[in-house]
C-alpha cells in the first residue's frame, strides 16, 4: 500500500484511481470486516474527494450513518462534521469508510460491535485489538492508507500493536473532541493509525490544533511536527522495568529488542518502576465509567436513534436502552452510575481523582530525568476470539496503556517485530504533555533502527 506521504504527491486523477482501487481491494478483503461497510454489505461511505482516510465509527461525518458500533444509533445520520473531519478536508484528505469498533469504544478486542467482529489480518482467528480495531486492521491489511481512531485507555495504541501498525494518542487537548461520540470526556483523544511513524506525524499535524468548539482544547498555536522530524536527536529514555517483567515472554523479548535498538541509535536508557497497574486499572474504570454513565444518557430514544416500542415513558427509556446497548456498555453504565451514587462518591470517584493525580505525578517524576518513556503496549500479542470471557481479564489488556490517558500524555505504539506465530508486538513511547516533537523524533529513530536491523 502506498504511504500517506506518497499519496500526498499524487495528482487529483491519480487519487480518484487510488480510491477506486481501494474500493475493489476492500470488496476483495471483505472477510476481515475492518469496515462497517464490509460487515453490512454496503458501499463504502464517502464524503468529498481527497486522499482517503478511514474513519472510526464514532467520529461524525456529515451525512454518514455514524453509530459508535451500537444498535441504539442504527439509522442515525450525523448532520455535521467533527472538527477533525473539517481539518482533513482543509488539507486535501477526505473521510472514506467507517471502521468497526467496540460499541461506544468500550472494549479491547472489537468483539463488542453491533456489526460483528473484525479479524486480525495476521491471523483470522485472533482479535485486532480495540476499540479502534477496524482502523488498525484496515491499515494493517492494506485496505486503508491511514485511519483515525480514538484512544480513551489505549484504544489506538493497543490495536496498532496487535495489528503491526503505528498508532498515536496525542496529548489531551491537542486534538479537538468536537464530533467524537464521547466515551470518557476527560480521557478521549482522536489520533492517527498509520503504516509508519512519518505518516502518523503528518496526519497528527492535520488534525491537531485549538478548536473553539471544544472547551478542553489547548489554546496554543499548533507547531507542525512533521516538518521538523529529527531521528538523529539523542535522548534519555526510561524503560519501565516492572512492566517488562510482568509482560509475557514474547512481549518481553521484543521489548528487549526495542531497547537494544534504542541504545544502538545512541539513546541513553535508564530504568524506572511504576506503581502496580492494579491501581491504574481501578482508577481508570472508575473515572471512565462515571463519565460514560452521563455521556451515554443522551441515547434515550427520544430524539434520534432506536426507540423501542413501549406504552409509557419509563418503559420507553427502559426498553430503548436495554435493547439498544450491548452487555459491556450496560456493565460500564451501571458501574459508573454506582460510583457516582451518594454514599459511594467519596469512596470511589473522589479517591480515583486523587489516584489520578498520583499517577500524573509519577510520570512527572520520571520526566525530570528522561525525555521519553518506553513500555510495552499490551501484556500479550493478539489473543483469540472469545478467549477473554471474563470482563476483568479483558480489562487487564489495557494495563500498560491507561495510565497515559489518566495523565493526559501523548504516546505512540510502534511495531517491534513479530513472535514465532507471526503475531506483531508493539512497544510504546510516551512523552511529556505537548512533547509530540520528542515523541515522533524518538519513534522515528526506533523505527529506522528496527527496520535497518530487520531489513
Amino acid at each position, binding site marked *: 500500500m502506498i504511504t500517506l506521504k506518497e499519496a500526498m504527491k499524487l495528482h487529483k486523477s491519480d487519487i480518484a484511481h487510488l480510491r477506486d482501487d481501494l474500493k475493489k481491494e476492500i470488496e476483495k478483503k471483505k472477510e476481515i470486516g475492518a469496515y462497517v461497510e464490509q460487515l453490512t454489505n454496503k458501499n463504502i461511505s464517502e464524503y468529498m474527494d481527497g486522499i482517503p482516510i478511514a474513519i472510526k465509527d*464514532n*467520529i*461524525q461525518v456529515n451525512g454518514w450513518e*455514524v453509530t*459508535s458500533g451500537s444498535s441504539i*444509533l442504527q439509522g*442515525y445520520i*450525523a*448532520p*455535521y462534521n*467533527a472538527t477533525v473531519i473539517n481539518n482533513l478536508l482543509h488539507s486535501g484528505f477526505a473521510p472514506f469508510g467507517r471502521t468497526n469498533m467496540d460499541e461506544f469504544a468500550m472494549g479491547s478486542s472489537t468483539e463488542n460491535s453491533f456489526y460483528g467482529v473484525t479479524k486480525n489480518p495476521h491471523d483470522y482467528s485472533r482479535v485486532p485489538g480495540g476499540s479502534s480495531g477496524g482502523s488498525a486492521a484496515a491499515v494493517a491489511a492494506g485496505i486503508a492508507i491511514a485511519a483515525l481512531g480514538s484512544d480513551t485507555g489505549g484504544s489506538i495504541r493497543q490495536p496498532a500493536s496487535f495489528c503491526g501498525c503505528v498508532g498515536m494518542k496525542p496529548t489531551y487537548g491537542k486534538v479537538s*473532541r*468536537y*464530533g*467524537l*461520540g*464521547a466515551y*470518557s*470526556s*476527560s480521557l478521549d483523544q482522536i489520533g492517527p493509525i498509520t503504516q509508519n511513524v512519518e505518516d502518523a506525524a503528518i496526519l497528527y499535524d492535520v488534525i491537531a490544533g485549538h478548536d*473553539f*468548539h*471544544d*472547551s*478542553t482544547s489547548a489554546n496554543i498555536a499548533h507547531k507542525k511536527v512533521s516538518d521538523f522530524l529529527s531521528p538523529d536527536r539523542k535522548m534519555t529514555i526510561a524503560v519501565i522495568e516492572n512492566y517488562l517483567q510482568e509482560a509475557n515472554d514474547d512481549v518481553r523479548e521484543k521489548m528487549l529488542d526495542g531497547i537494544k535498538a534504542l541504545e544502538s541509535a545512541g539513546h541513553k536508557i535508564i530504568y524506572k518502576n511504576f506503581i502496580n497497574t492494579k491501581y491504574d486499572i481501578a482508577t481508570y474504570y472508575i473515572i471512565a465509567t*462515571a*463519565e460514560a*454513565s*452521563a455521556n*451515554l*444518557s*443522551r441515547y*434515550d430514544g*427520544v*430524539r*434520534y436513534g432506536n426507540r423501542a416500542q413501549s406504552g409509557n*415513558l419509563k418503559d420507553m*427509556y427502559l426498553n430503548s436502552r436495554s435493547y439498544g446497548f450491548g452487555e459491556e456498555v450496560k456493565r460500564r453504565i451501571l458501574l459508573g*452510575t454506582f460510583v*457516582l*451514587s*451518594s454514599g459511594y*462518591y467519596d469512596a470511589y*470517584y473522589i479517591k480515583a481523582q486523587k489516584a489520578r493525580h498520583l499517577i500524573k505525578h509519577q510520570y512527572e517524576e520520571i520526566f525530570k530525568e528522561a525525555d521519553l518513556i518506553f513500555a510495552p503496549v499490551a501484556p500479550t500479542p493478539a489473543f483469540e476470539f472469545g478467549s477473554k470471557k471474563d470482563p476483568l481479564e479483558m480489562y487487564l489488556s489495557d494495563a500498560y496503556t491507561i495510565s497515559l490517558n489518566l495523565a493526559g500524555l501523548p504516546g505512540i505504539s510502534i511495531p517491534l517485530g513479530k513472535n514465532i506465530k507471526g503475531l506483531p508486538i508493539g512497544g510504546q513511547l510516551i512523552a511529556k504533555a505537548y512533547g509530540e516533537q520528542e515523541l515522533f523524533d524518538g519513534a522515528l529513530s526506533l523505527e529506522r533502527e528496527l527496520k535497518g536491523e530487520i531489513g
Partner: protein
Amino acid sequence: MFEVVIGLEVHTQLNTKTKIFCSCPTSFGDEPNTNVCPVCLALPGALPVLNIEAVKKAIAFGTAINATVHKKSIFNRKNYFYPDLPKGYQISQFEIPIVEGGEIVIDFEDGSKKTIGVTRAHLEEDAGKNTHQGSVSHVDLNRAGTPLLEIVSEPDMRSADEAIRYLKKLHAIVRYLDISDANMQEGSFRCDVNISIRPKGDKKLYTRAEIKNLNSFRFIQKAIEYEIERQSSAWEDGIYEQEVVQETRLFDTAKGITKSMRSKEDSAEYRYFPDPDLLPVIIPDDMMEECKKIPELPDAKKIRLIKEFGLKEYDAAVITNTVEMARFFEDMIERGANAKLSTVWLSVELPGRFHDGMTLLTSPVNSEKLASLVKRIQDSTISGKAAKDVLDYLMKNDVNVDEAIDKLGLKQVSDDGAIQEIIDKIIAANSDKVEEYKNGKDKLFGFFVGQVMKASRGKANPAKVNELLKKQLG
C-alpha cells in the same frame, strides 16, 4: 401559635442573546425546535462552550445583593432522565456556585425593613418543554440551553406577604440590572416555594414541602396560604407525620390547592460530578472589576429621589418599584418636567388610563409626550384640569401634545386684557355679590374665580384670574 418558615428558589432566565453553551438564539415564542443545534439537541459528539455573557450577568447580580462572587466556580452534571432534557443531565453548579452569601432587604408599608439572606445563586441551563396532546407528547427544545440563574434564599420569610415582597424586590433588582426579562407569564422568572410550619418559639426546622408551577405573584400568595392551612390543620388534627412529608407539590391554579407530585421514595439521586467537558470558570480580574460596575438599584434610587427632588417616601417607592417606571420618570425629568408633577402624572394619571393589559412599555403616551404635557402645565399653556382632557386625547390619537391642545382648543388664556374683559362682565352681572364680598363675605372669592373660569370655558389661567380678581375686588 404556628410560625411559617419559607425559603424561595427563583429561576430567572438571563437575557443573553444566545444560549449558555451554544450560539442558538434565546428568543421566545418561535416555531418549535427551530432554535436548536447539535449542542442543545445533544447529538453525539457535540460539546458545550460557556457563553461568557451569562457569567457577566451573574457577577452583576452577586454585586447587587452584596454577595461573594467566586473567582473560580465549577459546572457539574446533574443526572436525570426526562424528555425535555436532551443530554440526560443538566449542566449546573453544585459545590462551588458563582455567587454565595448575599442579602435582599424588603420594605413594609410602615417603613420597617427586613433582611432576607440569599444562600447562593448559580448558573445552569434551562430544559426544553414537553406538551401533551391526548396520548401523544411533543418536545420543544427551543428553550433547552437558555441560561438560568437559580437564586436560593435562606428560610428567612415568615408569611406569604414577606415572600411576595422578597420576590418583588428580587424581580426589581434583576430588571434594574437588566440581566433578565423576568417575565413570569413567559416563564423567565419562575419560583419554587419551600414551606414548613413550627410552633412559635421553636427554632427547629420541620418537614418542608416544595411547591412548583407558580407563575404569578397571586398564585404564589394563594399557594402559600393554602399550604400553611394544610400543614397547620394536619398538625392540629394529629396527622402531621402522615400528611406532611418532604415532597414536591404542584399548585393547581384552577382549584387553588397544592397536590403531591413526587413522593419521598422517588426522591431523585442526581449523581452530581464536575462536567469534564467544561473547565472551571475562572473570572479574570479586569472582567470582575468591569462587571461589578452596576447601575443604581431601587433602594438607592429611592433615597436619591427623596433627597434630590423632595419626593415623599411613598411616591419615591412607587416610582422606583419597577425599572420601567423609574426610567420613565428619569427621562421626564431629563426633558425638563417638574419632579412632583411628573410623579402624579406618571404614577396616577397615566396608569389610570391603561386598559387591556397596557403597560408603560406599550403605552401610546411615552415619556417624551408625558414630559411635554407636564411642561405645558408648568408654563401655564394649559391648566391641570385641561391636561387631563389632553391626556385622554393622546391615549387615543397619535399626535404631539401641542397638536392635541390646539385640536381641543384648550390653550390657556393668560393675556391680561382678555381675562380682564371676562372679569368685568362677571362683576357687572353680579353687583349684589360684589357688595356682599366687600362687606366681608370672603368665601365669595371662589365664586368669582369659578364664574370667570366657566365663562372662559376653563381656558383662563387660574393664577392670572386670581391675581386680577384680587386687584379688582381689593
